């Protein structure tokens, strides 16, 4: 019961133009955004990227604090990137003398550049996962990858696997919680001891969890077969992905962004 409330991924459900966009377009636009971020060679070039992201966040109606929260898991890496660059990069123009080290202007600029790049990358991909339910994401990926069927790439199977995994994560978490409690009730200790002792202590949790996962997989396979599942062949879909006006507009804006970034690089 304790774990049944967890959210899947970090989808933020609300009604916005960005939410309504075709997931395929969103995935492609994220790739374009990443390209733009790497094309941006100067701080000036980051301006259009930042403006683009701000606009997108605004349109998505995702609260800013949710966006900031998405940076949290990576904050250490961002800070480290900044510090390492500031202190260890060579430069010519000294800026501040801290006594133990001298901060150079060039180093500071590069540090800002690299950490800003990371921040923008994280914000961009978070915007995708915050505005697209996991199931739509796998759906979008499946369709984008489906042309690869000609080289036998199992796009449908992969998407089906991902969506089943998403479906069963909460179920298995709940089960893990229950088994852990049951073994604790028999005196098991999952918390103390050194690494090896702790790894050993996981056996009474992991074995039953695997046994159960296999049983569930068997059951599910049978249930899917009983409901006429026979692979991707001849399947129709409830959800049809259709590009609409807003998707074309978004593509156009993104194209402009890349142009702006390239221009900024030439200046």
């Amino acid at each position, binding site marked *: 019961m304790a774990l049944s409330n967890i959210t899947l991924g970090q989808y933020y459900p609300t009604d916005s133009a960005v939410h309504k966009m075709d997931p395929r377009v969103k995935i492609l636009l994220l790739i374009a955004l990443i390209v733009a971020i790497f094309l941006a060679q100067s701080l000036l070039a980051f301006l259009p990227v930042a403006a683009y992201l701000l606009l997108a966040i605004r349109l998505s109606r995702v609260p800013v604090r949710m966006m900031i929260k998405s940076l949290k898991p990576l904050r250490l890496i961002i800070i480290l990137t900044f510090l390492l660059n500031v202190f260890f990069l060579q430069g010519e123009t000294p800026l501040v003398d801290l006594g133990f080290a001298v901060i150079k202007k060039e180093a500071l600029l590069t540090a800002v550049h690299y950490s800003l790049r990371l921040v923008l990358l994280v914000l961009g991909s978070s915007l995708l996962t915050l505005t697209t339910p996991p199931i739509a994401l796998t759906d979008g990926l499946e369709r984008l990858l489906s042309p690869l069927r000609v080289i036998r790439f199992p796009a449908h199977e992969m998407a089906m696997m991902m969506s089943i995994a998403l*479906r069963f994560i909460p179920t298995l978490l709940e089960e893990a919680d229950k088994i852990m409690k049951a073994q604790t009730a028999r005196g098991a200790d999952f918390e103390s001891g050194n690494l090896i002792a702790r790894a050993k202590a996981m056996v009474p949790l992991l074995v039953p969890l695997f046994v159960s996962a296999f049983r*569930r997989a068997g059951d599910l396979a049978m249930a*899917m*077969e*009983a409901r006429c599942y*026979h692979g991707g062949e001849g399947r129709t879909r*409830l959800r049809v992905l259709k590009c609409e006006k807003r998707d074309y507009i978004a593509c156009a804006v993104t194209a402009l962004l890349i142009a702006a970034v390239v221009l900024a690089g030439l200046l």
Partner: protein
Amino acid sequence: MAEPIISVEHVSFAYEEDAPLAVSDVSLTVERGGFHAILGQNGSGKSTLAKLINGLYLPGKGRVTVCGLDTQEDKNTWEIRRRAGMVFQNPDNQLVTTVVREDVAFGLENIGVPTEEMPARIEKALADVGMLAFAERAPHTLSGGQKQRVAIAGVLAMQPEAIIFDESTAMLDPRGRTEVLEAVKRLNREQGITVLWITHFMEEAVACGRVHVMHDGRIVLSGTPREIFQDAEKLRPYRLDTPPMARLAQRLRAAGMPLREGILTVEEMAKEVERLCK
């Protein structure tokens, strides 16, 4: 008898070549619109029989037909599974997707129903089991009974003629069991869907039109619930219960109280006691 939907003729089945028979020379017919129960303890072969009917297993001997289609023929497989849908025991292990509406769509997608037709069929199916309000919910936030009703909707959307329930209430609490059984009874009554209800709860079998008792892979008793349940002695060798009222009536009769034969429910018992005591 009305036209048979499910017909099982002298079917035997073993999981492995020299393993003992899980189902042994079973014959059974379920007529269109019927509500039959198969009652038996764990390991009696009742679940195996269920899986033989919609072609998940193929008989070693004998013949299974659904709406006249032989399960042995490959080309019939998908049509049989569409016409005779199946709901399983574990409510957690038969829903495939993360949203109820999409789960109901799963079967429709598999049989290639055009996209435009899907929403209406999904909504009707969910409404029929009283789950329309939950269409956008994630399965793991539902109760056991609700999950089973979603599973029924998933089958129902495929417009089957029969549904086989393989111990679909065994893992539910009393409220969930009632929810599911009531929904199924309504489908049978109002839409004429043929039901084969597999269970080890005799209370559930009491409500069915016809009961078949399975033991050691064989059907050992067949009849109306009244014929099957009025004699506890007959059921004892098969390790099955009798309804509490039938048991009580039998004890009272043995003590001399002239209760009529065939009492199964509280209501019948109350009426009979009223008649004798007034």
